[in-house]
């Protein structure tokens, strides 16, 4: 990669990391996500800035040119992040569902404590 290309990528990486830090400081981004993006960006910047390292990685990945290796790595990172976000969304959805269930059960408990009859009443008469 040309020196000009390396400089552009490194400058973009610095700006990107600054942006991530700003989002984290503002409370718009959790530290764990910020860490993920910063580590990924630093890894990319180092890889591009150290030609022998990029050559070795390219060779290790079986790519013929560095751009192919970088594209593959970027694609892998995107897939990983998407899976991670799917997991997080599922976790949030589960928590939301559990909260909705707990809220409804609590409300029914309160109603049963204060109002004597809802539907048949064998449950209450036999409750300890």
């Amino acid at each position: 990669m040309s020196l000009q290309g390396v400089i552009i990528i490194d400058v973009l990486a610095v700006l990107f990391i600054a942006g991530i830090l700003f989002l984290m400081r503002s409370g718009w981004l959790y530290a764990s996500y910020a860490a993920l993006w910063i580590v990924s960006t630093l890894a990319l910047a180092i890889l591009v800035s150290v030609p022998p390292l990029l050559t070795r990685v390219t060779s290790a990945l079986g790519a013929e040119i560095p751009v192919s290796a970088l594209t593959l790595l970027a694609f892998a990172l995107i897939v990983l992040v998407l899976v991670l976000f799917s997991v997080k969304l599922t976790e949030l959805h589960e928590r939301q569902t559990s909260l909705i269930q707990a809220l409804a059960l609590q409300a029914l408990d309160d109603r049963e404590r204060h109002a004597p009859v809802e539907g048949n009443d064998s449950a209450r008469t036999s409750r300890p």
Partner: protein
Amino acid sequence: MSLRTLAVIPAFNEAQTIAAVLQRLREVAPEVDRLVVTDGSRDGTPEAVRSMGERHLELVCNVGYGRALQAGILYAMRRSYDVVVTLDADGQHDPRDVPRLVQELEASGADVVIGSRFVRTRSYTGPLGRRIGQATFSVLTRVLMGRRIYDTTSGLKAMRNGACRAALEGRFLDFHSEVLVRLSTLGFRIVELPIVVEERTVGGSMYSFVSAVAYPVKTTLFIITGMLDAWLRGRTK
């Protein structure tokens, strides 16, 4: 009927039918307690249930059929009911079948009794796509469970306390094949009892075109993961 029984009725936008279902259930099975789970309904279902003085769990958002049922089962387990009977709020199930299912549970010693539209009778027809899906999952459960369940998608089921507790441990889409395969893998005994259902006359199915396409894929995934989970937990009740 010696077993304390709770009928759990999940209802999503069923304001037009829920009152009739509850009234009929009161008349034909007064010994059975009732719990309606209004699953994020926006059509006045909670108000209709409340006006009848019926016990209900009001879920503020729609969480889906399976999770709404689980909320009702959780309530039943906290109140130490012996049996939970699930039935649909759209009026397709005959409330007279509720005591029949419980009697079959007592007589057969089974853990789960399914009100089946297909065993012995072939009265229920329904749309072609749904029948193909039902047949597919019937075959799939036969392969996985080693015995045939004719009606894997019936919403009318009676479950003993132990099966209910096991059903609370998993995640299910609609409490159909996926819960049956899981319970069977855990060693619970499942039997079927013939029932006759009515075609719904009011409102529409809870399955849109998209969900009808996604349903078989999701259910298959739930079956596989449920079986794996049951195997990892051990095949004992």
